[in-house]
């Protein structure tokens, strides 16, 4: 099997994690270092082993990008719109509370993904009702109201 260039990212990420934890570990008391040290050595060793495997594969079979396999059929616009909407949804919950944000988020994403308006409305009503009855009524979870709504209520 050829070495994939995308795996370089995996190795770099793992070494970075090791370095980060090692740097912070040195500030700890000796007794608290035992287990983190063990896991850092383990991760470092395994990553190095994988690096060696990669290099052997590169020498024997050559190198390939790997991006075309990892991101096969990738729809960048759709993916990043959904990701951005998810992050905005989180921010919106903090300011406007759970229910308002959920309705806005679901409507935006469903319409963007070309779900017909009638199905959009039905989906939103079903999900909001499910959460209201299952979480708020049955489990007694108080869902976030939002700082803006709280301020307006005062």
């Amino acid at each position, binding site marked *: 099997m050829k070495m994939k260039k*995308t*795996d370089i*990212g*995996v190795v770099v990420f*793992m070494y970075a*994690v090791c370095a980060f*934890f090692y740097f*912070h*570990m040195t500030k*700890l*008391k000796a*007794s*608290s270092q*035992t*287990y*983190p040290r*063990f*896991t*850092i050595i*383990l*991760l470092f060793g*395994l*990553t190095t082993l*994988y690096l060696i*495997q990669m290099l052997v594969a590169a020498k024997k079979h050559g190198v390939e990008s790997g991006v075309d396999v*990892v*991101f096969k*059929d*990738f*729809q960048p616009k*759709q*993916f990043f719109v*959904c*990701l951005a909407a*998810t*992050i905005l*949804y*989180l921010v919106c*919950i903090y300011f406007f509370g*759970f229910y308002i944000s*959920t309705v806005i*988020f*679901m409507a935006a*994403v*469903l319409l963007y*993904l*070309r*779900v017909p308006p009638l*199905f959009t409305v039905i*989906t939103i009503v079903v*999900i909001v009702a499910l*959460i209201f009855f*299952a*979480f708020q009524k049955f*489990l*007694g*979870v*108080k*869902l*976030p109201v939002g700082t803006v709504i709280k301020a307006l209520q005062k």
Partner: protein
Amino acid sequence: MLETLSLMGAGFLNALTPINLLMMAGGVAMGIIIGCMPGLSAAMGVALMLPMTFTMKPETGLIVLGAIYCGAIFGGSISAILIHTPGTPASAATAIEGYQMTLRGQAGKALFTACYASFWGGLLSCISLYFFSPLLAKLTLKFMSAEYFWLSIFGLTIIAGVSSKSIVKGLMSGALGMLISTIGLDPITGVKRFMPSSYFAEGINTTCALIGLFSMSQVFILAEKKIKARAQATKFTDKMSLTREERKTIRPTIFRSWIIGNLIGILPGAGASIACFLGYNTSRQFSKHKEQFGKGSIEGVAGSEAANNAVTGGSLIPTLTLGIPGESVTAVLMGGLVIQGLTPGPELFGKYAPMTYTFFAGFVLVQFFMLGIGLLGCRGFAQISRLSDAILIPCVTVLCFVGSYAIHKNIMDIVVMLSFGVLGYLMRKLDLNTAAVVLALILGPIGEKGLRNALRTSRGSISVLFSSVVCWVLIALCIFGILSPIFMNRLEKKAEKEAADATGANVEQLTEEDSV
């Protein structure tokens, strides 16, 4: 013996309370819905529903999770039979014969066979759950600190190897999870470790990590692909039943598949996706009507479905007794157990025996609900299985958000869940193992306590880790855990190849659905 029988009886009485019965029905229905939707996996469903069980009694919560698990494994067969797309990888072999039966106008018969075989597979698997669990749990009484350390390593080697294409990558994922598990207060000295804020004092919230790694990451996987219209589910008009002769034909198949599925389930590291192919192949080998295979054989459907559902009871044995889940779903189930404040091992069969036996009884009753709901609701579930990814993406996102928030009613939990969602997505894209991270988050603290207590008693000498026979047995099992994927992969490939050779079906296409 008498004590066990009385515990079993009491377990059934507890399980038969109206709330437990209601939860079983709801859990099975939810599981079937999740299972029949291609793109959603059993592990994802159990992770998503985990927060719902927090406020329930531990036994009720576990029954719900068990019901979702069983329902999802069976649910995968509905879309496999009707739209030739297995809802979960565990039903890949069912699609071969099941869809052929649908094309022949026997969809009702195929669905009945799947439901009937799943019921018997699941029900019979409970026998081993009752008998082997207490015995294996007693074994762990001999475990000291060093043994617990090795046990945690063994658990990781098993799951890291199994669900990964590369064993080293799987182990790297486990080590990464172990490192993440050290975030928070030192469990022995109380010193702050790697904490950016006091929110992380108790470490990373396992449930948030679970939801992120299994459910939120799946949302991102769905969001990156072009939204496609699903194939039309075949409307079937034939009666959902089998003749007495047909039932007699599939009886030995179900029995054989139960043995296969159960053994595969007990063996940590093997899962329902392997069992279904082995069950299918064995049914073909022993069949008196080999010519029907590839053209729609009820024995093929029964063999695959009985085997994958027989895995459920078997896989709970190492999970509940040793704390070693053999696959992703049981790793999530174990998360549910730990979150309820319960530790797998002898305590579950001693101090918490009434709860454990109630769960076992609930697991038995769940099979009956699966049979009833499965038979009555097949037509409805078939329509749900066609639900577009465009609808699933925002719905699952909202459930991930509300689920992670419900735990401590803290928005930071959603941030953690989302972060693990992104991490899980990248890990899955790069063939790293999310299940190993989750398991490491659960087993990490057990391993740390074991290692440090062992070193403290030996005044820092690591020889304590090699001082007992049990330690050496566990070390040997760790080596087996690392090497077993090679054997398991060969076994799965062989079973798939045999199925493909015999029927001409494109097994690769059926199994390519990514599973968590």
